[in-house]
């Protein structure tokens, strides 16, 4: 491993972490294609690396959000029962499938993520389920408006179902799965977007850890790749969150949705 390789990995991690955090996607969606297409890493190693990066960013972000009480802790832990099951199955499946098959599934995932990115700019639920109407009541201080937002949660089984699938995808492909969970929590259960995002990010660390050891056991975790990449993504996510606060607008979302479609094609035809 040359010095140039290390720098490429750290740099790639920083870029993918920044972009991921800006778009609310987490590092996995961009990091895995980077590792496969630019760094020419085998798919399983790329996924294992992504999983580590995802644990890092999720844990770092969750530390802050949990203490600010934006995370609905009890909902998150309940849903984790589902995501962990899903992730374990995903991890076991991934280690039976070939790298090519995983690449193809991944490219399909990127198309779905691209679609979801556009869909969620037009569909979000502004009015949340009131307290008393559902379970897991919670409230948090919305820093942007200065108001205290109170809500509760309905249709938990539906969200558990989505969490199971999201966990499966996470274990299979090394992504966080938040792009599916957040809209589900917001639209189906009436959870305010900020709380849904924070809760989803909180859960992702455990979801990723659930399959991490499976990849480790199969020898796919290369520390010389995973360490610089994870550190880079961690640094990038700090930067990306700061940029996110300043940039608004859907044009960025469209640009990256198109970029993801192009990456998807590349991953399919590699």
């Amino acid at each position, binding site marked *: *491993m040359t*010095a140039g390789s*290390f720098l490429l990995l750290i740099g790639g991690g920083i870029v993918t972490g920044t972009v991921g955090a800006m778009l609310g996607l987490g590092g996995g969606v961009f990091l895995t294609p980077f590792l496969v297409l630019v760094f020419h890493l085998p798919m399983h190693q790329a996924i294992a690396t992504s999983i*580590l990066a995802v*644990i*890092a960013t*999720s*844990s*770092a972000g*969750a*530390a*802050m959000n*949990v*203490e600010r*009480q934006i*995370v609905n*802790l*009890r909902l998150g*832990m*309940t849903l*984790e*029962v589902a995501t*962990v*099951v899903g992730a*374990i199955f995903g*991890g076991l499946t991934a280690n039976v499938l070939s790298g090519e098959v995983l690449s193809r599934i991944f490219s399909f995932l990127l198309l779905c993520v691209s679609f979801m990115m556009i869909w969620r700019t037009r569909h979000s639920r502004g009015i949340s389920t009131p307290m008393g109407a559902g379970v897991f009541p919670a409230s948090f201080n919305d820093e942007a408006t200065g108001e205290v937002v109170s809500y509760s949660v309905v249709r938990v089984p539906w969200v558990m179902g989505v969490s199971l699938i999201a966990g499966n995808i996470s274990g299979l492909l090394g992504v966080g799965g938040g792009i599916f969970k957040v809209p589900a929590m917001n639209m189906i259960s009436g959870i305010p977007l900020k709380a849904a995002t924070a809760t989803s990010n909180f859960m992702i*660390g*455990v979801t*990723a*850890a*659930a*399959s*991490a*050891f*499976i990849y*480790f*056991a199969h*020898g796919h*975790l*290369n*520390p*010389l790749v*995973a*360490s*610089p990449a*994870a*550190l880079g993504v*961690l640094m990038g996510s700090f930067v990306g969150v700061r940029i996110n606060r300043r940039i608004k607008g859907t044009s960025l979302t469209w640009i990256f949705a198109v970029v993801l479609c192009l990456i998807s094609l590349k991953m399919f035809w590699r």
Partner: protein
Amino acid sequence: MESTASHHIVERWIGWTLRLGVWASAALMVLGLALAWFSTSTIHLPSENPRPTVVLHSLFSGSLDPVMVMFAGLLLLMLTPFLRVLTAAAGFAAERDRTFVVVALVVFAMLLAELVFSLQ
């Protein structure tokens, strides 16, 4: 009336665990990378992933092999969510929320089963 502080024990403990886990593992990874960067000999990847006990043994023997230090960082990172779930169980117990002590322990049990099964 209970003080609000007692309601947020879980949140504080989880926050601490996560922060500690991320920064400690990052520090180990940085240390490993620095050792690799300044190493005069070529870095060898072991042919198989070393078991966690091997990694710990290597660390505490003071040999400071860059790859082992990096593995230690990565293992700690992978274990951070495990610790977080355990901390949540403890925090819920401190808040006398028995239901969620059980939920947290169920999640932890599944994670632990997967860990043990994988490492065999």
